[in-house]
């Protein structure tokens, strides 16, 4: 047990910081306020990820045969920390490199690898994740979007009907990583498959769901008789649940949200200091508490990265880290409102933006309660009913 960064890791962090200082445009701060799904950030991410790819960093943790550098997960996590700490200029592409690409490597055909992996590692493709449905939220295995195999001449196609909801980033996405039911007689986790589908396929319609979180944040994706060739199937038919479980096993902490929260907190504290608020013992108490929370989330995430670096099977440590990261996000989102006070009434002000980005943390990527259920059964081994 030791908690030092290697010399190489420290150098990498420094290089990434210098790179960010050189690459981020002057209006980045403003751009990043809208989150990874915002229009300007989505456009910028294509340019930025291209630059990261040129540096060899975008997919440095991937195996050499797929254009990576076989770097340890720790190295990739340093990149993730530095990216989130400035507001994630990779936009939604963090998903591509963290889990969509690796799933294609693991389950994909040679043709799928040849089609998708070079695009992802070049940093010029946007993906979205089509899992949730109106009737399948926390209970994802209740999903009903149907992909039916139909023969047309000597060819076979899937015809997809149904809808997905809450799909982040899908307004800009080139592809959707789509979870469908391929066996109509199946229920729950059996009979589900993953399809990799271009978003411009006829029959796909995206509608925005207006929300208090921000503009173009939530979407519904409708599939009406969408015909796709059968070679979009990832992995074996009907075994999509395994694909998703494998893909997401570490993803719940894939986003270094604590790094973003810590940056926000530093900003809040500086503002508090400038306004003489550090004389107020309540403010001091809240700031100290929040800083401890950021650090606590960080160490629990590190624990998960350590497991991944050692190739250990996933454990409930992921859920521990996830819940604390959520608490951290929420606490700092609320604290910003308190420190900025009435100023935060202004839409898109610093505190307002942070608050809106943080407020969904306990629901996105699986509700906190579901994480707590998993901790109870897997970590504490408490009995089921």
């Amino acid at each position, binding site marked *: *047990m030791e908690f030092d960064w290697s010399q190489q890791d420290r150098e990498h962090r420094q290089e990434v910081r210098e790179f960010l200082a050189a690459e981020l445009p002057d209006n980045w701060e403003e751009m990043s306020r809208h989150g990874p799904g915002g229009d300007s950030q989505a456009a910028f991410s294509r340019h930025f990820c291209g630059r990261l790819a040129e540096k060899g960093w975008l997919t440095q943790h991937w195996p050499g045969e797929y254009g990576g550098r076989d770097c340890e997960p720790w190295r990739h996590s340093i990149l993730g920390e530095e990216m989130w700490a400035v507001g994630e200029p990779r936009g939604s592409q963090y998903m591509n490199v963290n889990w969509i690409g690796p799933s294609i490597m693991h389950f994909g055909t040679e043709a799928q690898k040849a089609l998708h992996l070079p695009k992802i590692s070049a940093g010029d493709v946007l993906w979205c994740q089509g899992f949730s449905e109106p009737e399948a939220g926390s209970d994802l295995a209740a999903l009903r979007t149907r992909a039916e195999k139909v023969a047309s001449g000597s060819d076979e196609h899937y015809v997809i009907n149904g809808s997905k909801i809450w799909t982040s980033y899908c307004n800009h996405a080139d592809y959707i990583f789509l979870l469908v039911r391929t066996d109509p007689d199946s229920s729950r986790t059996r009979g589900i498959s993953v399809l990799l589908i271009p978003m411009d396929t006829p029959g796909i319609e995206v509608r925005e769901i207006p929300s208090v979180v921000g503009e173009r944040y939530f979407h519904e994706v409708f599939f009406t008789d969408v015909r796709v060739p059968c070679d979009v199937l990832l992995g074996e038919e009907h075994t999509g649940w395994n694909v998703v479980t494998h893909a997401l096993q570490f993803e719940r902490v894939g986003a270094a949200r604590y790094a973003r929260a810590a940056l926000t907190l530093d900003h809040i504290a500086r503002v508090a*200091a400038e306004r003489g608020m550090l004389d107020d013992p309540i403010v001091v108490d809240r700031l100290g508490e929040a800083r*401890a929370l950021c650090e606590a989330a960080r160490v629990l995430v590190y624990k998960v990265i350590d497991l991944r670096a050692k190739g250990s099977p996933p454990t409930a440590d992921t859920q521990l880290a996830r819940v604390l990261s959520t608490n951290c996000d929420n606490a700092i989102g609320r604290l910003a409102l308190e420190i900025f006070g009435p100023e935060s009434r202004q839409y898109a002000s610093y505190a307002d933006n942070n608050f809106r980005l943080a407020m969904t943390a306990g629901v996105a990527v699986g509700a906190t*309660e579901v994480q707590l259920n998993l901790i109870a059964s897997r970590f504490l081994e*408490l009995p089921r009913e």
Partner: protein
Amino acid sequence: MDFELNEDQQAIVEAVDRLLAQQAGPARATALGNSDTVEGSYDFALHSALDEAGFSCIARDLAREDGTPAALEAALIVEAVSRAGGVVAAATQLLVAPALLAEPPAGPIALCTRRELEQGTPVRYLAQASTLWVVDEAAVTQHNLEDVAVAPVRTSFGYPMGRIEATGNLHSVGELHNAAADARRWWRVALAVEATGTMQAALNCVVGYLKQRRQFGRAIGSFQAVQHRLSECAIQVEASRWLAREAAYHNAPEEAAAVAAAFALAAADQLFTETHQLSGAIGFTHDFDLHVWSMRLLALRQELDGVGGARRAVVDARWRDATP
């Protein structure tokens, strides 16, 4: 970066756990707590056993090549002693003392702030300690307690406590100049480590119980309302553990030490409240081990200005310079 124990650390933890399995544990802690003598309320046997096994000076003995003490190994031992409910001043001995003196005094050391001494508040291990360190703004004053009248104080909070009857007899036998900041940093790490071990044991005790205890025809631990609260507790304990170990490893940097204490001492409150609430009436009795750890958590929360003091220290270390 490596969160797994290496072979040497594994061996240390196993050895100390073996020793503690024989010489400590909740039954022994309860028995010592019921002792009506001052001597009998402190585990001098365990104290000596830890000395003899080489655990007490492990920080120095296993120091790294550049001389930095092996504080992580010391922390692992203190965590284990706390888990076992040991009634010994191991945290001060293993974590605070090596940072202040090359040759710390033998025998239990009690630790208090100048204000606590002046106000005559009960201090942990004071009645049994041979040395008292008083932490001032700038210096740490060392006192030999052999000829000083210290009265044991009855307390609800798990550790033996004492109070100096007449401070007139209290003479400094040395001042550790400029040591106060170091003492505070290490004291906070020590509190975080002790709180971690103590919280872990309290949680284990209650989780074990709630897997067995049945009401309404099912194990109470199967109710989701109960599970979520225990899961939240588990998160608090795990985070406290890694913050404390990391702070020890890095030799108690001011901010990290304060962060570890701020988090762990806040967690201690949650653990106290939840473990008692979820145990029902049995949890308040001497027949149930929970009290050995739970009551101590509240005592730990009062040292060195507690959570509030630690949070203030976090802000001072991280942002105070930013004040215009």
